[in-house]
């Protein structure tokens, strides 16, 4: 029987809707004949015991989820999100450079650093959307 680990953090269970969704995943996996276990950060050493890892915790190269994803990937397991996707999707600069490279339709975007911030605030071209570059 195949074994899927679902990597979760405690916060994944704080919202009843999220918890219900996780139980739905478990139910669907078991109905299809797959063993499904929740994997918490203290269980990372158990990754080799599984055939696949499905990540539900926040994916970011700075978070434990990346350690889980890359460990599973290095060990040859199937993993979602895979480490490359995490590297791209968690970073707006990376995404935008790829949008430009492959000519994906995109909203005009500029990236500014801390030093440029004060100057930029004085420019009268509002409204515009501001986001941090990390998420």
């Amino acid at each position, binding site marked *: 029987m195949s074994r899927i680990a679902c990597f979760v953090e405690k916060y994944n269970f704080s919202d009843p809707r999220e918890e219900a969704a996780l139980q739905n995943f478990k139910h669907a996996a078991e109905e299809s004949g797959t063993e499904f276990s929740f994997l918490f*950060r203290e269980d990372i050493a158990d990754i080799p015991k599984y055939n696949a890892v499905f990540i539900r915790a926040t994916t970011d190269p*700075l978070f434990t989820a990346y350690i889980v994803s890359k460990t599973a990937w290095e060990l040859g397991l199937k993993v979602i999100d895979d480490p490359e996707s995490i590297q791209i999707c968690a970073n707006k600069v990376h995404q935008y450079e790829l949008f430009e490279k492959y000519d994906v339709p995109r909203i005009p975007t500029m990236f500014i650093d801390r030093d440029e911030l004060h100057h930029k605030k004085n420019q009268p071209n509002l409204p515009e959307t501001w986001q941090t570059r990390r998420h």
Partner: protein
Amino acid sequence: MLVVSNIDLTSGLRIIKPSEFLDSSDKGFVINVNSDYRYLKVGYYVSLHAEILGNKVIPSSEDIIDSSRTPIMLLRAERAGIATLPFIVTDSVKKIISELGLPVVVFAVNPFISDGYETAKNKSALYRAVKSLGMNYKFDVCAMPLKGEMVTVKSFFGKAQTEDKEIEAISSKVFDLFKIPICKLHIQRVDGKAYLNGLQPIKEKQMPKQDLELISNEITLISQQGEHLSV
């Protein structure tokens, strides 16, 4: 060959500042020489920008991320045949003691602490280490047994600043694997054998003039030999 660096190198080669390179579409083999390669730092964006332009670059953005996360660095090193020690990733003192015993070496696994490690010879010291390096248990730590003596060496293009042949060999293999031009390696010597424990950035102020000359000489050598580095 394009040398992109935030460091004042003595090389006769033209050095491009990271800010200039990030605004450019320069093509060519890029050597990214930076005092801090961590994710989201300028050193990371230089490699990322080079890759998106289609350039060969050392280090790659993937290797930058992996080498700065100790458990991934150790996993990849072990799989590449570099001697490492067993390690666990956890925020639990009990788990560290039950699986590794004491004493242990503890490294941070979070985006905010990138310098140093702690050793713990008893339970209370381990609690302190896990609490501080885990930022009040918010993040995991990476622990491994402490069986010998900890040694820290600077490594420039895989050449360790040491007379120890075994540590030199580890430094060379780590460079072959991750291609991080400037880093320090934490190595544990146990019964005459060396084991890789950690890889961290070197702050620019920790590099005196002779270090900068060594780095410059390595870059000059690479430029004379051509793009022999496999990427």
